[in-house]
């Protein structure tokens, strides 16, 4: 495997005395789908938010595409080719589906903002091209009829798809998916799995996937990283990792113990 | 040195009056997240109610105080319906606009009914004075700091040791969680507004023996109160108390050793600095900005 697209080492994050992430690290290779799993409160979401730059790490290094991005804010990381979805759906609620996609494409638009404000022809043509691309992608995600619809008028499942399309339209090198299957019906989960695989296969997007649904993880991931209490307790192919007694202990053992205490 | 002590005492008196107005505002702001620009009008109406009760109807002091409290509670009840319940599910800034509208309406209602001329409450106390070493204060002024201490102390105790007080504090922390814990949000909101209005009304009544009351008096009062609330950290009565005294003393010292013209400017500069560099307030613990 060539150099990883993303490599994270020795990350520490504390919240008011509680250590959420304690020296964990992970990497995602080019074209790889890496799962990040762990029981509730294991630090997955914190990790993801530090990878994408929403939250600064207390220590640790983040390298993206060979470049140190530790000090960069979220928007600079996005401009380097990192897209993300959110655990709690996040869309620009008052805008149309198409405009939501358009905004994610702003970063790769070549014409200056001022040309756009002045309504210069090159800027208009560029925007038209992006709109065409957005419609094409929406078709890909079965959302074509809703392009002009306000995004909040769509169902939760459709909104999830908009989030994915929003990530894809930016042509990212890495797409960080934070629990994309949450709240989806089983048939939709199947569709999601197929879509994510196509995203990697057709667009060559590497994927870091945080997921609770083990079926999604098993079907999609080349490799899985398991976090528990902020440290990495296992790493490897999904089949191997799910058999690992340490992982089983972390998930089931503690869960069982917790239930017994209650 | 003697002079410095006198300046300090003046600052404490003025600061105490700021505290009295600001504690109610900080409750409404901190617990319900309502920015209440009509708070100065609560003060103004408290002053008018007190003067009318004691001068026009010749009621004794405790009865006048009861009238002020009753009028203030009614106001609080109405204001809660408009500014809190009426604005559920709206963004934070709606309360600013609505309460500004309420302030304009109340000011002009008073202007139309009571006339524009300033009013003053006359008491026998005005002719007595208190001397503490080099410090000399007329009685109505000297009474403000102890009254402030009693009121803020009682409020603090109530917040700490009564069920309602704990509900209020729980609401300030997290409304949904408080609701789940059995706090009746609606009731707490009404109580907060009535309490805030009464504190402001009583302050207006007490102050009307020292300063004058006129329909527009609330404008400056509310700005000063907001300065105090922000410096003190919102939702913190003790913070407001400390910040109010601080502002009073700083203004007094500015007036004494710099120039009186800068008195009002200092407070606003302080607010901008505090919000930029220590948004939780000088005396507040860190707050989550969501």
């Amino acid at each position: 495997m060539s150099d990883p697209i993303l490599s994270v080492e020795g990350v520490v994050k504390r919240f008011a005395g509680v250590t959420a992430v304690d020296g964990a690290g992970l990497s995602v290779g080019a074209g790889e789908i890496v799962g990040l799993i762990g029981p509730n409160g294991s630090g997955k979401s914190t990790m993801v938010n530090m990878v994408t730059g929403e939250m600064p790490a207390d220590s640790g290094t983040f390298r993206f595409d060979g470049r140190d991005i530790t000090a960069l804010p979220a928007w600079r990381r996005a401009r380097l080719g990192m897209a993300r979805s959110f655990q709690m759906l996040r869309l620009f609620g008052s805008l149309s589906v198409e405009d939501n996609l358009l905004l994610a494409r702003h970063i790769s638009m070549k014409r200056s903002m001022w040309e756009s404000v002045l309504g210069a022809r090159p800027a208009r043509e560029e925007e038209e091209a992006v709109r065409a691309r957005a419609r094409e992608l929406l078709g890909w995600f079965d959302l074509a009829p809703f392009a002009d619809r306000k995004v909040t008028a769509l169902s939760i499942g459709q909104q999830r798809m908009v989030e994915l399309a929003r990530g894809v339209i930016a042509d990212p090198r890495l797409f960080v998916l934070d629990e994309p299957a949450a709240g989806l019906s089983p048939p939709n989960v199947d569709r999601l799995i197929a879509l994510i695989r196509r995203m990697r296969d057709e667009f060559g997007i590497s994927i870091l996937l945080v997921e609770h649904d083990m079926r999604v993880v098993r079907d999609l991931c080349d490799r899985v990283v398991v976090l528990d209490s902020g440290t990495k307790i296992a790493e490897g192919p999904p089949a191997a990792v799910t058999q690992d007694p340490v992982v089983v202990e972390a998930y089931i053992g503690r869960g069982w113990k917790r239930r017994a205490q209650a | 040195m003697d002079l410095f002590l006198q300046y300090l005492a003046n600052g404490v008196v003025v600061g105490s009056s700021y505290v009295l107005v600001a504690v109610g505002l900080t409750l409404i702001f901190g617990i319900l997240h309502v920015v209440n620009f009509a708070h100065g009008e609560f003060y103004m109406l408290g002053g008018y109610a007190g003067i009318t009760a004691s001068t026009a109807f010749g009621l004794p002091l405790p009865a006048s105080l009861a009238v002020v409290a009753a009028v203030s509670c009614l106001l609080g009840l109405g204001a809660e319906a408009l500014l809190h319940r009426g604005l559920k599910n709206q963004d934070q800034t709606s309360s600013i606009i609505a309460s500004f509208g309420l302030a304009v309406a109340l000011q002009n209602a008073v202007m139309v009914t009571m006339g524009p001329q300033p009013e003053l409450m006359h008491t026998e106390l005005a002719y007595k004075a208190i001397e503490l070493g080099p410090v000399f204060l007329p009685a109505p002024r000297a009474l403000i700091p102890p009254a402030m201490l009693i009121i803020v102390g009682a409020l603090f105790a109530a917040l700490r040791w009564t069920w309602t007080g704990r509900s209020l504090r729980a609401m300030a922390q997290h409304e949904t969680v408080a609701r789940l814990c059995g706090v009746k949000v609606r009731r707490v909101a009404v109580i907060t507004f009535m309490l805030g209005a009464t504190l402001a009304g009583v302050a207006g009544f007490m102050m009307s023996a020292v300063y004058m009351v006129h329909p527009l008096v609330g404008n400056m009062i509310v700005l000063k109160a907001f300065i105090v609330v922000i410096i003190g950290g919102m939702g913190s009565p003790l913070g407001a108390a400390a910040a109010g005294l601080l502002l009073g003393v700083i203004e007094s010292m500015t007036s004494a050793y710099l120039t009186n013209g800068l008195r009002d400017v200092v407070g606003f500069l302080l607010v901008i600095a505090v919000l930029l560099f220590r948004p939780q307030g000088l005396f507040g613990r860190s707050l989550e900005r969501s």
Partner: protein
Amino acid sequence: MTRAALITLAILAVGFVAAPFLLGGYELNVLMVALLYVILAVGLNLATGYCGQFSFAQGAFYGIGGYTAGILSRDVGTGFWMNLPAGIVVTGLFGLALGLPALRLKGHFLAIVTIAVQTLVYLGLVQWNSLTGGQNGLAVPPIGETTLFGVRLFEVTSLRDLYWVALVMAAVFVFIAWRLVHSRLGREWVAVREDETLAGAVGLNTTFAKLTAFVASAAFAGGAGVLNAHAMQGVTPDDFQIWISCMVVAMMVVGGRGTFMGPILGAIALTILPELTGELARYKMLIFGVLLVVCVTVAPEGALGRIRKARESRDQAASGRAPAKDPSEASA
């Protein structure tokens, strides 16, 4: 909305162009003031309505524009056409300065900082005597003769001439606002308003978006301020108290913040309506206060926002609950 907005704009344009031929000086004066407020409210709407950054300092910027004109006229001897760009630039820079706190503060904290700034600007205008002339303010020459390279173009003497200048300026500013909000920049402003975290996550420079919104917003007020200073032939601090800021906020809110036409119609309505109170003039402010409370409680999205919302829910009903049905689920 765009089509409706264009039609409304066209009707307004016809009305405003016809006005000087139909109306007397008083009515024309009212409409000219309305045009000034249109510029102020449309400008405020850029920062507040589109970008979600609340400001109670529009009156201060209005004043800074006016005082820039006054100070330049006094110290440099420039006329309206030089003062106008200067006023816009200077006020824009002040807008940039106000934008800085907005990078750290949100919601009512930001609102309170803008109130503090508004009050400080007023106190500054009153107390910095040597620069601002204190309470007396400054005299500003009328626009007068306009020349280009020594060639006399036209002369602004009467109210009618002034009205035309105001109308052209308002039209230009409204057009600029239209371009801004329908450009990539405007879309990014809305993105910041809707969800700042998400805006950052898709790579938008939210700092840039917020600062440009504040600069644009202030620059509009600066332009209106310069025109007002030359029209009134003077500036005094009392004309730029927080009261004016609140008035502009009210116009924007009543019309509908974040809609394009709302603030325009709000500014026109709230300038004209008080002129019609007649016998009720004594209760004018009382009515205004009550109106504001009612408007915010009953229709917080403003008149146009309300209409838009009604249309959306009607469309939704007409399209037969389409959003609730997920075609992928049907096909699965």
